[in-house]
């Protein structure tokens, strides 16, 4: 990193942001992970993660590569099970109901818990407009006024002004940052309660990153956001809560979670302090 990162500078960034506390925004009860473990084959990659995501908050998951952050958020919307040999234990509760309960329609879970991936992945065979509304078709949802929804989602994703005159153009004609905002707009069209973001800015330039961070802050007014990031300034800028993950030889564990300003100013665990001050990772 070009800039000298000290705990106090990160704490400064974190402290200057307005914070929300859980329960202040009445959106429902949110998302909770209870004693979540994950395996790939015999490899135990995630051990005993319990974490609450209060509705209307932004939670950042930080930690070195390979510590299980991405695996963890993929257990939250059941994308984990797509990997052959993947297994999990524990419970993920959405509005108090276990998303892994037998008889659950997994497609409905993923409608409520949307996901934005590291690499922008618009559907190349579809136009920009079709991409935004792709979820309706994929999940066989009915929508009476598609034009309004299209505009609303693109506005919320901060992309409307740039694409409103070329909604019929192919999604691939956009820049990387625009594509990622298109993917965010696409996730919003099915009206999820929770949006999971797996390093959404890691493939983007600083300008695009800033736009997406603005988008995240605006979205957090109406939904719960969980974001995996390697950029600690980003975590400090946008999150209300920060959780630090670490895999020290064994499976990944959650070392500490707390309000973002506390994690960056006075972490309780020495390992968290070492990480956020850049002594390792």
């Amino acid at each position, binding site marked *: 990193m070009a800039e000298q990162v000290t705990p106090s500078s990160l704490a400064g960034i974190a402290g200057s942001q307005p914070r929300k506390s859980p329960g202040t925004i009445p959106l429902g009860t949110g998302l909770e992970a209870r004693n979540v473990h994950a395996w790939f084959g015999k490899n135990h990659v995630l051990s005993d993660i319990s974490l609450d995501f209060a509705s209307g908050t932004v939670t950042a998951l930080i930690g070195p590569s390979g510590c299980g952050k991405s695996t963890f958020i993929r257990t939250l919307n059941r994308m984990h099970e797509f990997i052959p040999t993947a297994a999990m234990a524990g419970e993920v509760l959405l509005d108090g109901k276990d998303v892994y309960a037998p008889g659950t329609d997994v497609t409905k879970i993923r409608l409520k818990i949307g996901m934005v*991936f590291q690499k922008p992945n618009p559907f190349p065979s579809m136009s920009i407009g079709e991409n935004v509304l792709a979820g309706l078709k994929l999940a066989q949802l009915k929508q009476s006024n598609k034009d309004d929804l299209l505009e609303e989602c693109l506005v919320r994703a901060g992309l409307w002004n740039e694409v409103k005159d070329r909604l019929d153009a192919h999604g691939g004609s956009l820049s990387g940052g625009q594509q990622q905002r298109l993917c965010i707009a696409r996730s919003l069209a099915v009206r999820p309660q929770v949006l999971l973001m797996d390093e959404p800015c890691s493939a983007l330039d600083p300008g695009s990153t800033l736009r997406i961070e603005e988008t995240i802050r605006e979205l957090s007014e109406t939904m719960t956001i969980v974001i995996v990031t390697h950029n600690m300034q980003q975590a400090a800028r946008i999150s209300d809560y920060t959780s630090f993950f670490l895999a020290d030889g064994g499976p990944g564990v959650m070392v500490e979670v707390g309000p973002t300003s506390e994690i960056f100013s006075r972490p309780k665990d020495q390992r968290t302090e070492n990480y956020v001050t850049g002594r390792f990772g």
Partner: protein
Amino acid sequence: MAITERQASSPIPTPREITTQPRRSDQFFRSIVFLGGLSSLVILSAIALFLGIRGFEIITREGLKFITGYEWYSSINADGLSGDQPSVYGIGAMLIGTIITALIAVVIGVPIAVATALFLNFYAPNFLKGFLVSVVDLMAAFPSILFGLWGLNVLMPSAEYWAKLLHKYFSFVPLFEVSAPVFTRSPFVAGVVLAIMIIPIVTSVAREVFSQTPLDRIQAAYALGATKWSMIRAVVLPFGSSGVVGGAMLGLGRAMGETVAVFTVLNIVFQANFQILLGAGGNVASLIILKFGEASAEEIKALMAAGLILFILTLVVNMIADLIVNRSGRQGR
């Protein structure tokens, strides 16, 4: 400062020629693979040349009638005895038969092959997948005479029943009309046999392209609450469509060139038959095998000419396939 001054004063250079001197071992290997690459071209042009030279006489004599004519009569038989009428050679009926049986095969075979490929890639449990893949591969290596015999003895009775059903309920479609109640040994039955023969190749091409569907797009669809089927429709099929078209064209090429199975199943008659359920037809390849055994020198030349036309037809189909693949290939990728 000296550097910038020199840059400013120097004229814009012409681009340099960039070359490399490959090592001897590399040159040696290069010539070997070059020969390998060239060999198929050489063999193919040699065959085309051979067919052209041998068939030239007949094609020039018969002119366009060779392609449009329906009659095939040789006045000289293999024993050199001459008949009273002049020889006429026309492969029109056989060309029509070639195209009709091959199209029936593609229409029936490709959907089954695509469904098989989708099942193998996205639905089959692992233990079943490996087994089924080897079964399909085995099918590709199965001798075509066995398909022909099976088609004649086992498939024909049930295919005759399907044909009667089609005729009963869809006879308002000209294709399914039948002018005489002969339902056995029809282009329809031959098409079904050919369909079974092209399924393996189309399946393996389709499976290959489907398996290359980018994972991030599949995940994007699932993350939007897609069911497996809606994911396949939105992501896999657009991505794989050009590959499926290419595979279908490979299948079409194989179906057009198939000899033994068609010869075994089909009742070869020299008339243009567009009624696919009627027991009469033929294709160019089966004509060649039918006539070759007792052909006179002249008739053999005519058969060579027929072979040349089949060769050109196959070439044209492949070129059209390339065109389609290139045009639709960029979309969805």
